[in-house]
């Protein structure tokens, strides 16, 4: 099932700004390899789920997949053939706001070549350019 919050304070949110660069959540923290987004924007809950399914099917119970983003923001839309006005539409989708550099998924417990292939499958499901990254040793 697609991700969405269990409880929210407000059902609908304003569009907000798309912030350009990530200052946190941009390092491999849980697994050994990760996939990093190179553009800023929204990733929908369906896209996140599609990526997870693509990776878990490829890995066949090997290793562990970590999802580093969560769709906190609701996106509303008006039904087709409706006149303008009469208030804001109903929530249709949930999205995660990502910035350039945000780590989307991480994989641990598998060899690099397997992780590369799994993350390439995720990358194909993402709406933005992504790249493969390895864990960096902290000083």
């Amino acid at each position: 099932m697609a991700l969405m919050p269990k409880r929210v304070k407000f059902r609908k949110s304003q569009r907000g700004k798309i912030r350009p660069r990530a200052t946190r959540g941009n390092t491999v923290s849980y697994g050994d390899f990760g996939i990093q987004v190179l553009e800023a924007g929204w990733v929908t809950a369906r896209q996140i789920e599609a990526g997870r399914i693509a990776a878990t099917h490829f890995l066949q119970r090997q290793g562990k997949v970590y999802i580093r983003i969560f769709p906190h923001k609701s996106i509303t839309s008006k039904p087709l053939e409706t006149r303008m006005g009469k208030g804001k539409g109903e929530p249709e989708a949930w999205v995660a706001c990502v910035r350039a550099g945000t780590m989307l998924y991480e994989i641990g417990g598998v060899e690099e070549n397997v992780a590369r292939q799994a993350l390439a499958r995720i990358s194909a499901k993402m709406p933005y350019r992504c790249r493969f990254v390895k864990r960096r040793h902290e000083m």
Partner: protein
Amino acid sequence: MESGTINAEPRTQLGSKHTRRMRKSGKMPAIIYGHGEKPEPITIDAHEAENLLDHHSHVIELSLNGKNSNFLIKSVQYDYLGTNPIHLDLMRVDINERVQVNVEIELRGTAKGTEEEGVVSQLLNSIEVECLLTKIPESIRASIADMDVNDDLLVKDLILPEGVTAITEGDEQVAICRIPSVVEEVEEGEEGEEAMPEVIGKPKEDEASDDDK
């Protein structure tokens, strides 16, 4: 342990504007502190510093004001993509001083438990050790070939080089081998059937209708 000599110059122009210009011209800002002396902002060549960091070096030898001395790399700041280092924190140290540093743990081999569908998870990627400046290990290698399902590798099980003592608690888990729990995938309902999250502070529809009665 690899370390090369890098030319450094004292930095007089401080602030983000000058630092940005400096980075564009292939230089990197850094700061030297420690031993109760005043902090000293410096400039080093970015390319040389990157090469040094690629070799997992903990010590840097700088030629500053015509004098060569060793410094411990305390922290490195990277850009938003985590590719290019943008700032270095260097600490003054004596060559015979014992220092506390984080050293990477490398797991070697394939665990026995992986044949029984076990998955090895590395929980600790580096440990804090104390050793002489000249004897900082590049990494600590641990063999996991004998690791079975439900086995743990603890910090106290690691074989450290001579003169190196672990500061991280010995009971901390470095790696574990477990069979992952199977999560049953719930089939998604038809479009439009998706449940909406509960709104905090608003009574649920059933409760609201009960109140009306």
